[in-house]
């Protein structure tokens, strides 16, 4: 090795690590070090196999089939359960349907997926020679749909149907947009209008680009196209547990929290006038939060003002697009309008389910008769949407409509066991996305009413969720995996998440309640199981393990967002749950800090089961303390320990190469952090 080269590399490494601005010298050293011939050739292996997602082209008897590639089996769960896509037969009219989980018919798939139903309707009402190829994929984004559209030419399609829009949150945001948003949050006061405008423009721009690319892609291909725009379950709309907290931190946050507390009280007391007044105040403090709109919608519905309620609920949905925390997927009005405008610009026909459902419901708001959860459709929702889609397609192909009578006659004869499993899956999905008890209970009851097998599925789930053992080794998992529940759940839970244990309190309580109503009493058994598996004993238990953290999936995902080895709270409250007896006091070892200071006199409040236990000082650096909590604070079974953090005064504005991360840190700063959180019983 040449010593000169080594010296040059050492000097360059020193300049880089010292973030030197001496660009001349850096360039000089770089040129010295480029003596090696050639560049690394890279590990990329050229893939010359024709693929469409998980499918790869295979020649069988001289004909091209697309078969599921075993190498892609990790992704099978989010794709249709179809092994082979055969070559198109002569005389067939082939529709390829792309879309997201709604298009997959989540929780009914593989039995009543929209592509299956669309094919049935078209065969019955139009022509037996129509077939629909299902290429809907859970969680797919718009760019992936475009890619699939390109690859699917290999299927010899006559028509494309794209059923999408639920996964378009955050699309089209450029680095320049992020810079502009960052600039709008300076001096501690967020410019909400500016953010709204930037993100709104980004969505419109993205939609334009999407349809422009789609137009270029399909140009000259003689492929008809229909874009179906989904709708949202407005009647059951609930701001999730995570979303209910502060969204962005600025000078108004303190007041926003105070008004929110007052509104919650007024809501509990049924004082709707006060709720309305306070909600307006909340919106003046933070117009991009959903909660106030949800409350206003509730008031409007109570007053029978459906149109006003729709507007408020759509505003609430719109505001989820501004959230940096995890939100339920789903269309909003901004995206819907952008899609309609852009599709029209490029002459693509659209079918807007908002209009379809509104017409079907005669102006009433869509709810659980059409939706299983926030956006996934019931069999009724699938039937209505696909009937209308079939009608539009026939109109596109022939200029004529299907006879209304024929469409009216079409029925999905649903198997009760499949319906039961779908309701159970919907209950679980609603629970894991922080939705209210009422909708979860509704689906639990529906599941039990639909089919007797639900009792076994629910009992198995309770066992599986209440034990520490990885789901994979649990004997109940085997039953669940092979039941309708296991087959239809795709995407809802993942039994392969061996180490990801959480308490699932809301869902477990809903199941127990629904079972109890049927005369099945399992509460005691589950309590015993929790005590045996998770109870705080005399050995230290780490309350930062996922089991003891908040009970909803979205909360847990939010917790993991920053990928730290310690707990970072980017909201005002931290909730922990643990199982104990009420027999002995408990000692807690806590190492915490509040890196972003609040007002000097504000304290960190620790509540045990809603009783204030102690208030701790803010600490800039890690501080370890030991708390001895008398047994009178505890109850036998599940207990809650809640920490109220004071509002950080400053936005932690940093500028790194990762602009999105900078923005997240600035808008959702850390309120408090916990490094150690051990809990154990004291033997008096």
């Amino acid at each position, binding site marked *: 090795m040449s010593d000169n080269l080594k010296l040059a590399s050492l000097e360059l*490494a020193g300049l880089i690590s010292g973030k030197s601005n001496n660009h001349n010298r850096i360039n000089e050293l770089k040129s010295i070090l480029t003596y090696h011939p050639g560049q690394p050739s890279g590990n990329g292996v050229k893939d010359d196999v024709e693929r469409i997602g998980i499918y790869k082209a295979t020649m069988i008897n001289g004909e091209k089939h697309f078969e599921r590639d075993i190498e892609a089996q990790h992704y099978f769960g989010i794709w249709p359960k179809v092994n082979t896509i055969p070559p198109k037969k002569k005389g067939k009219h082939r529709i390829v349907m792309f879309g997201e989980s709604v298009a997959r018919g989540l929780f009914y798939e593989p039995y009543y997926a929209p592509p299956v139903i669309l094919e049935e309707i078209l065969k019955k009402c139009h022509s037996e020679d129509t077939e629909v190829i299902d290429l809907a994929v859970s969680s797919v984004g718009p760019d992936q749909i475009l890619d699939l559209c390109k690859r699917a030419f290999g299927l010899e399609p006559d028509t494309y149907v794209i059923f999408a829009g639920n996964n378009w949150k955050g699309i089209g945001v450029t680095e320049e947009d992020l810079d502009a948003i960052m600039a709008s949050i300076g001096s501690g006061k967020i410019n909400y209008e500016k953010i709204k405008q930037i993100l709104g423009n980004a969505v419109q721009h993205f939609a334009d680009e999407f349809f422009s690319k789609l137009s270029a892609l399909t140009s000259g291909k003689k492929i008809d196209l229909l874009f179906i725009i989904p709708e949202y379950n407005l009647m059951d709309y609930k701001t999730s547990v995570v979303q209910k907290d502060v969204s962005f931190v600025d000078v108004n946050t303190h007041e926003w929290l105070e008004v929110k507390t007052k509104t919650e009280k007024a809501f509990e007391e049924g004082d709707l006038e006060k709720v309305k007044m306070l909600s307006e105040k909340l919106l003046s403090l933070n117009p991009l939060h959903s909660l106030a709109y949800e409350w206003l919608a509730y008031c409007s519905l109570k007053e029978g003002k459906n149109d006003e309620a729709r507007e408020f609920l759509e505003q609430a949905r719109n505001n989820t697009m501004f959230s940096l925390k995890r939100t339920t997927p789903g269309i909003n009005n901004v995206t819907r309008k952008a899609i309609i405008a852009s599709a029209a610009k490029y002459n693509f026909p659209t079918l807007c389910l908002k209009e379809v459902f509104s017409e079907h419901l005669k102006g009433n708001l869509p709810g659980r008769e059409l939706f299983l959860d926030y956006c996934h459709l019931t069999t009724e929702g699938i039937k209505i949407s696909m009937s209308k889609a079939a009608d539009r397609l026939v109109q596109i192909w022939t200029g004529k409509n299907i006879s209304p009578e024929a469409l009216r006659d079409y029925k999905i004869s649903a198997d009760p066991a499949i319906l039961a499993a779908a309701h159970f899956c919907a209950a679980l999905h609603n629970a894991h996305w922080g939705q209210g008890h009422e909708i979860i209970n509704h689906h639990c009851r529906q599941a039990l009413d639909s089919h007797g097998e639900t009792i076994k599925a629910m009992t198995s789930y309770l066992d599986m969720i209440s034990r520490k053992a*990885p789901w994979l080794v649990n*004997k109940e998992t085997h039953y669940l995996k092979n039941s309708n529940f296991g087959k239809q759940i795709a995407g809802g839970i993942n039994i392969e998440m061996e180490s990801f244990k959480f308490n699932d309190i809301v869902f477990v309580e809903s199941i127990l309640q629904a079972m109890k109503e049927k005369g099945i009493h399992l509460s005691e058994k589950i309590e015993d199981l929790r005590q045996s598996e998770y109870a705080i004993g005399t050995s230290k238990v780490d309350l930062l393990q996922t089991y003891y953290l908040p009970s909803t999936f979205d909360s847990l995902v939010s917790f993991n967002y920053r990928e*730290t080895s310690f707990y970072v709270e980017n909201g005002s409250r931290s909730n922990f749950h643990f199982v104990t007896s009420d027999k002995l006091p408990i000692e807690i070892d806590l190492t915490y800090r509040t890196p972003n200071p609040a007002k000097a006199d504000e304290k960190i409040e620790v509540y045990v089961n809603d009783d204030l236990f102690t208030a701790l000082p803010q600490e800039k650096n890690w501080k370890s303390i030991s708390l001895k909590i008398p047994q009178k604070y505890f109850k036998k079974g599940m207990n809650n320990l809640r920490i109220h953090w004071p509002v950080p005064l400053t936005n932690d504005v940093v500028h790194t190469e990762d602009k999105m991360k900078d923005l997240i840190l600035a808008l959702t700063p850390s309120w408090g952090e916990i490094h150690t959180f051990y809990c154990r019983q004291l033997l008096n």
Partner: protein
Amino acid sequence: MNVIGISAYYHDSACCIIRDGELIAAAQEERFTRIKHDPALPVNAFKFCLKQADLSIDKIDAIAYYEDPVKKLSRQLWCGADYFNEAFTHKMDPSKPEREIREILGFGGKIEFVDHHLSHAASSYYFSGFKSAALLTMDGVGEWATTTYGIAKDRSIDLFEEVHFPDSVGLLYSTITSYLGFGVNSGEYKVMGLAPYGEPLYIDKLYELIQLKEKGQYKLNLEYFDFIRGNTMFSGKLAELMGQPVRKKESELLKFHLDVAKSLQVVLEQILLEKAKYLHSVTGEDNLCMAGGVALNCVANGKLLREGPFKKMFVQPASNDAGGALGAAAHAYAKHSGNNIKSAPLRSVFLGPEYTNADIRNLLDATSLNSVSYETTEEMQKATAQRLAKGKVIGWFQGRMEFGPRALGGRSILADPRNPEMRDRINAMVKKREAFRPFAPAILEDKTKKYFDLSHSSPFMLETCQVVSEESLPAITHVDKSARVQTVNEKDNPCFAGLLAEFEKLTGCPILLNTSFNVRGEPIVCTPADAFLCFVNTDIDCLVLGNTIIDRENNNMEDLVNMVKSIIKRKKRTLNHDVYTFI
């Protein structure tokens, strides 16, 4: 004073903790994440170490990191990496270790960067128990150094000579490993195991690849290598020189491959012996401390001790990069406290997590399997020994997990070494690996001389010796009559020693075949659940978890096996083993 040691971002990331001079805990991140050789910042191992030491982050005085990122970057730049290309920037960012230690681990205190080979040297010397010693470290590459020579005395280490990248004995070994169709950073053991089947017919050719120079130096002939910037370890010229094409992975092993493996082993031993003689002549020390990946070549270690100039030798049991965490922490502790490491000489590497019988009971209650729980450890040992004597293969999960690549009776697969079919059976049906690979014996320490040509204890399975047993031990005797012995005593490894004693009572043989509790391509098991899944996914006859035994023959496991196999297959994640990732 409390110090945490970390190695990360290359392969085998790990974390350890020294509390007031005592090594309390150490673990590799792969055991928690289940990604073999996981290079990520060892977040899980870090949390485990703090908990095990009963310390919170504010009680940690320093974090010692096992290499110097700026020096490392200079070597990467020399290799031709385009730092200014965005794709590389994140990977090579020299501020990444400090930034992530601050941001991800939340540590605000002192971070000490200890050179890679100094970490290796310290990991051996500070835990050797020697007052003074000569130091020899050898691996693929650290920052620039690939081999270092040094001397240590009274807590002070002086590495007085280095061989620099790209000249590297470790990379020579890895290159031939890759040429023979095995993975870099994972297949070197296989080549060592293959060597005794061959003849040293290619020594001359291999010396075309490396030229020994004066003092501690040597030079690689880079015409035959392509690891600096290529996607393979070797250039096209290597195959020309050797007269045979590169062996395809999993293809048939020919006599040629065996002969090359043997030749490589001989060349390595010759280089080690010559350089050890040089080191001895310079330092005049009787004790030798070794570390670095090359020090895991137990065959060479044994030869070095038998034929070399040093009277005593200590090889750090986790000599690979994982052990760098240990050395960095020990170095920082000794430097700042002025005290010795209390855990020296290192007597045990049971430094990982442990689980209670209640944890195990809860796990098994969730499953559909029948099991037997014993009141006492002695009863469990007897019952296990009976099964071993009947020819059963046992998955053995006891106490704390080992640190380093060897299973030493905490997370082991055990069998009767006298059974002539056992080696093939375990290789094929249990470990799912190549048929030629040998297994190691564990023996009660006071019985060693009767069975092996070994005059001292070997608790970490780091050297080989000849089998001198009158009784045939086919399952653990390699083709050249050698064995990689682990000696076990009651004081340091009581549960395993108890089992060996029970087995001896039943059979008259105080030896068991001992191999790591994992299957090919997966890390050694860490938790009872990992052990359970490994048991389900292999042909192990009995699983012993603490005081509980599960017998495969007493259970219908078909459904469970099918589900676990399908899911494990889908989850498999691996790293690139075609080339060292220098950039």
